[in-house]
């Protein structure tokens, strides 16, 4: 860990910003429509691109006729793959190739010989206006020779399944084994075993702002600027450099305001490369803005795991062993971190339970669908759903109360740091405490009694809970690189104090609505004992922040927040040394508080202000021996391990017997993300995560038919939650600081999406299990629930 000297015993400030719901400085611009999103940027001479996409899930491209498109009004160029060599438009790199994979199938931004999913880009039309580009795109005529397609990951592994990639003998990209111990002997000796098949369907982040990419290549300097909504400008810069052969120091990537991301804007996409290569060729700026239909078909979704789960337990319900076989759908190619997500998901399959034996096989499988990638939770929602559903099945089968069964199996607080049977180390936790709080908030025993009475009246009601833990703040770097993770785990902050004492923080993360400008300013202002308005936070532009790792895995506070705090401590250490020099006392005798350095306890001592010290550092003419001018420091924090947020979600539901519709009557979420920087933002993240989790549980599915035609291409077929779908969320927190970073924060961006889907589905299963329904897969639409009830009553 990089660490500045701890200079002051007392806190540097009497105005504590950390732990306080400071209003977000981002809000004014968004409330007034003055926030600049990517599509709001117009460059002079800008052209517009429209992408022609595959209409078939799997086909050879016989020919592409572009002449008719070229002569349409306003058209400047039409490009296909044949127009670019590998040096101008190479394959798109991934960020995670597991060492056991037989390479990564080449993914060209514009398809070459074959198309492998509906929506894959085959040509691009560039015109003077967007309308002209869209009109002309209809005149591009692609002739295909159709091939059989496969969309289901499990079916794709069967003998005789259509092959997605000719160069491989099977669609299985890898089978990764996790776990220790002997399942068979544990199962043979067990008093109770359960076996459940679960489908964690494909879902889509579907941020309200779709993707936009604007490339501007400057002749002469050879500098390419790319504006896009992304969670990580630096990975885009690196991968774009590899794909188009412009060195990284001549690429500038800018992400202005981002209208939601949730993991879907984390990798380099084909269109980013296409507009970049086209701009270089045409020497004019080009904007491409995705339609919602393109977003649903081309932008990566998440989940899509089929899992066979077994548990073996003793008489008391103590779980002895876990066995899982997972078929994870990678899609047609490997996108960004897509290959690694199923594996890290497996690493938290045991959840919050002390299970000694695990036997897990994860099959990563290619299909003729769009790629899967990080989506809010990326592996942990799948894991929490898997174990929490299975534990409820075990409780039902063994006849043990599900709350009691969970208590008997919890990892206990004294066991942390705890290494589970699938190789993950949890940093800290206190599950009983969170459980007790959640049960108290919902009034569990009263709800159980009410439920019995309601059932006696013939109503279909259920109570469900989930207890989860997860992992955030990617680290450690060594372990992750062993499994082929090709992103960094560190985060950096640079702090500059100007001559007038104002503070600029450059931080290597990129917000998409999380309020980082506010939270990072809270941390730095607190560390430096300054007014929060003296601190400005910059992010999202590689010319402003030269290096960084980006926003994902709920890492922004644990990694970037920590690096900002450490950089601030370095600044304060240097400023204190300089203040001592100015006051002619020993550094240890200087007391700093609220922007004032004193030669002894305030208010008696002589004083210099932070600003006066900043001036002196800037002038640089009378510095202590060996001190360089200026107050400017960098801190890089590489987390020694993941953090492990955890929590308990409880839902009470009622099902309409006539329609099968599920109504959530009560929803309690108790989440522990360690220390909180801004409680209002923390709760907001839980709200948003729970909404998306309820969406997955009840409504959302990104589906294809058997031929690989997408069936969810608008908000009509993909019903994201509306305001009236939301139950009242009752939120609570426990605070168990993380030991792996000095702020004690764990991360909260994804927790809501992890705890919610199992809680809701467990509640529905609780409502229908006694009526004879033994399994349901998400989304629990009215039609699905109603049909299951009908079949069970036959």
């Amino acid at each position, binding site marked *: 860990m990089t660490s500045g000297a701890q200079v002051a015993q007392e806190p540097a400030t009497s105005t504590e910003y950390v732990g306080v*719901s400071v*209003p*977000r400085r*981002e*809000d*004014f*611009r*968004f*409330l*007034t*429509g*003055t926030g*600049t*999103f990517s*599509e*709001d940027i*117009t460059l002079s001479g800008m052209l517009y691109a429209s992408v022609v996409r595959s209409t078939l899930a799997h086909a050879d491209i016989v020919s592409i006729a572009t002449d008719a498109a070229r002569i349409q*009004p306003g058209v400047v160029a039409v490009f296909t793959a044949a127009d670019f060599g590998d040096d101008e438009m190479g394959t798109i790199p991934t960020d995670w190739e597991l060492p056991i994979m037989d390479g990564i199938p080449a993914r060209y931004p514009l398809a070459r010989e074959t198309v492998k999913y509906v929506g894959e880009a085959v040509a691009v039309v560039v015109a003077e206006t*967007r*309308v*002209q580009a869209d*009109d002309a795109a209809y005149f591009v005529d692609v002739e295909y020779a159709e091939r059989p397609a496969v969309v289901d990951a499990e079916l794709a592994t069967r003998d005789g399944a259509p092959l997605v990639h000719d160069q491989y003998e099977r669609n299985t990209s890898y089978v990764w084994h996790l776990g220790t111990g002997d399942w068979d002997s544990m199962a043979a000796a067990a008093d109770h075993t359960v076996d459940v098949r679960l489908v964690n369907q494909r879902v889509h*982040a*579907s*941020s*309200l*702002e779709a993707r936009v990419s604007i490339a501007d290549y400057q002749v002469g300097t050879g500098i390419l600027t790319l504006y896009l909504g992304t969670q990580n400008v630096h990975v885009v810069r690196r991968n774009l450099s590899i794909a188009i052969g412009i060195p990284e120091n001549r690429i500038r990537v800018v992400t202005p*305001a*981002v*209208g*939601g*991301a*949730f993991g879907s804007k984390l990798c380099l996409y084909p269109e980013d490369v296409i507009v970049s290569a086209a701009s270089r060729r045409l020497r004019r700026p080009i904007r491409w803005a995705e339609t*919602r*239909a393109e977003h649903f078909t081309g932008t990566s979704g998440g989940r899509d795991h089929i899992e066979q789960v077994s548990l073996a337990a003793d008489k008391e319900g103590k779980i002895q062993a876990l066995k899982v076989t997972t078929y994870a759908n990678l899609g047609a190619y490997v996108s960004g971190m897509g290959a690694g997500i199923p594996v890290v998901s497996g690493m938290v399959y045991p959840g919050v339970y002390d299970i000694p034996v695990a036997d897990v096989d994860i099959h990563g499988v290619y299909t003729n669908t769009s790629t899967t990638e990080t989506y809010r939770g990326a592996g942990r929602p799948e894991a929490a759903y898997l174990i929490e559903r299975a534990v409820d099945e075990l409780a039902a089968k063994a006849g043990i109360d599900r709350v009691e069964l969970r208590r008997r199996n919890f990892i206990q607080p004294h066991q942390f740091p705890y290494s589970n049977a699938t190789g993950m180390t949890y940093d800290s936790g206190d599950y009983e405490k969170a459980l007790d709080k959640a049960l108290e908030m919902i009034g569990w025993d009263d709800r159980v009694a009410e439920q019995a009475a309601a059932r006696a009246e013939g109503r279909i009601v259920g109570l469900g809970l989930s207890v989860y833990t997860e992992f955030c703040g990617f680290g450690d770097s060594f372990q992750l690189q062993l499994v082929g993770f090709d992103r960094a785990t560190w985060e950096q902050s640079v702090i500059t104090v100007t001559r007038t004492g104002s503070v600029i923080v450059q931080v290597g993360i990129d917000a*998409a*609505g*999380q*309020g980082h400008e506010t939270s990072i300013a809270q941390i730095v202002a607190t560390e430096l004992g300054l007014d929060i308005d003296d601190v400005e936070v910059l992010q999202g532009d590689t010319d402003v922040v030269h290096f960084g790792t980006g926003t994902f895995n709920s890492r922004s506070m644990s990694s970037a927040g920590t690096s900002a705090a450490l950089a601030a401590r370095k600044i304060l250490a240097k400023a204190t040394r300089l203040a001592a020099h100015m006051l002619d006392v020993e550094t240890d005798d200087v007391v700093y508080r609220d922007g004032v350095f004193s030669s002894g306890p305030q208010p008696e001592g002589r004083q210099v202000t932070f600003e006066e010290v900043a001036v002196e550092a800037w002038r640089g003419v009378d510095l202590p021996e060996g001190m360089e001018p200026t107050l400017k420091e960098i801190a890089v924090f590489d987390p020694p391990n993941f953090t492990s947020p955890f929590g308990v979600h409880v839902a009470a539901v009622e099902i309409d017997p006539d329609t099968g519709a599920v109504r959530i009557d009560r929803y309690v979420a108790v989440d522990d993300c360690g220390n909180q920087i801004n409680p*209002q*933002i923390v*709760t*907001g993240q839980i*709200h*948003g*995560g*729970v*909404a998306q989790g309820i969406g997955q549980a009840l409504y959302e599915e990104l589906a294809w038919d058997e031929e690989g035609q997408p069936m969810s291409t*608008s*908000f*009509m077929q993909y019903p*994201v*939650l*509306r*305001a*009236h779908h*939301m139950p*009242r*969320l009752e939120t609570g927190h426990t605070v168990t600081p993380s030991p792996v970073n000095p702020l004690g924060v764990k991360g909260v961006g994804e927790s*809501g999406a992890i705890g919610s889907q199992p809680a809701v589905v467990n509640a529905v299963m609780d409502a229908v299990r006694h009526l004879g329904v033994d399994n349901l897969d998400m989304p629990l639409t009215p039609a699905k629930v109603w049909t299951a009830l009908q079949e069970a009553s036959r």
Partner: protein
Amino acid sequence: MTHDTIRTGRPAAAQRSAISYTLNGEPVSCEVDARTLLVHHLREERNLTGTHIGCDTSQCGACAVHLDGRAVKSCTVLAVQVDGREVTTIEAVRGQGPDDLHPVQEALQSKHGLQCGFCTPGMVMTALELLDTDQALTPEQVQHGLVGNICRCTGYQNIVDALVELSASESGGTR
């Protein structure tokens, strides 16, 4: 589309129409393509980019503006249709001074009713209409009033709370 354009095969884009209307209190006279949607006109031709586009199917409400004082989805209105009418966009919604927020905007900020902010202009425009009443609104009324506006970030609760509280307060939002 007229029969003429079908017969000649000329794209409808070639048809231009002159319109005059009031935009955020100022008169505007210009020519627009017959098929240009109001949202594209505002964003591309009037440079008012606070009105957003979130979908292709009139589902999301990110594009909401006021037409003669009523909230409409500007992706569902042709620019030619606003001839002679009055259009108000988020850029005209402010408090007393240019740096002040309108009470609806203030309420959303204080309740943390926005995260990425992409839905926010549309939410504000819809909320202004919803709050144009003497009644204190119930959470259910607000939830149903926002049925045409998608927010993928907040889970809506803070937005609903902000508007319910504002409707019950003395200023009552927009009145």
